[in-house]
């Protein structure tokens, strides 16, 4: 019930150190409060474990529970088409308390995206399929809520603390050396 069924690939949004011994995958929802809590933890982890960590974000929007979550996921992926996925990702989480339909247009403008291209990508079938494929891979991997983390393919026991993530990462690093 607890292994990542879809391996990390070039289709994934990745940040951190390519070829790092540790890959952390998050299934997240931009309007999920708990994902908002985890957001700075990931930043800190990437800063502290710079050379050892690759981080992947996969979309798991609960559309009915969070009305802007799906649009947010599409917006981040659309920004990714212009090489600015992580900037959009950060901007969305940093404004998590106040997301609405127009937010993403404002964010895209603030990030200096090509607006016409963004509008087109945001509504494109390809971007929609990316988000839905992420969701499906999460369901198949036993994701039952957000955030759910996988570390080198194994589900992490995350208890909403930075320490639980740090310990999980540190438990994997020495084995690789």
């Amino acid at each position, binding site marked *: *019930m607890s292994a990542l069924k879809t391996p990390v690939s070039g289709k994934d949004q990745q940040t951190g150190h390519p070829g790092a011994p540790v890959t952390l995958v998050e299934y997240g929802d931009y309007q999920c409060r708990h994902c908002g809590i985890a957001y700075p933890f990931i930043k800190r982890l990437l800063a502290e474990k710079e050379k050892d960590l690759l981080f992947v974000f996969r979309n798991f929007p*609960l559309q009915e529970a969070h009305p802007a979550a799906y649009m947010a996921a599409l917006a981040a992926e659309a920004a990714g088409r212009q090489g600015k996925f992580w900037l959009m990702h950060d901007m969305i989480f940093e404004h998590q308390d106040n997301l609405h339909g127009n937010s993403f247009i404002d964010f895209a403008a603030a990030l200096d995206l090509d607006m016409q291209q963004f509008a087109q990508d945001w509504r494109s079938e390809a971007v929609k399929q990316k988000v839905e494929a992420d*969701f499906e891979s999460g*369901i*198949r*991997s036993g994701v*039952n*809520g957000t955030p759910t983390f996988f570390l080198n393919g194994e589900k992490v026991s995350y208890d909403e603390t930075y320490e639980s993530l740090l310990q999980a990462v540190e438990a994997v690093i020495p084995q690789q050396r």
Partner: protein
Amino acid sequence: MAETILAKGTTAPDFELYCTPDQRLKLRDLKGKRVILAFYPADWSPVCSDQMALYNEARKLFQQHNAEVIGISVDSKWCHLAFEKDRHLHFPLLADFEPKGEVSRLYGAYDEKEGQSKRALFVIDEQGVIQWSYLSPDGINPGADGILQALETMDNSQH
């Protein structure tokens, strides 16, 4: 009365329960479709809400396998209605309310001590036979991976 949950190969006991304040749903009316029965302890409790929210989103994946999901708990039809509205749930929640827990008992999914349904899943085929069942600890959201695997196994055995 079943002591453990009904297993694969058992014919799913028929039932008729309220799915809205004025409509009842019979299991046999769904013959020809696959049915996912999700017994759960209570509306509004945190784990259940997550589980039902997840199934709400996973419905489109279930439907690709000709399957519909149905939730069942001992909550009343009015309680279900409020819960469905609040969470925007698009699948039926059945009220195993009177006699309390009768259908849950038939499936071995009733917790006598707590007076509520256990967290149990059943995947029933087009002919009304249980093809997969799973009992989850009360506090643990079982996700949907087991359900999808069961549906895929059923697809493969048909070909």
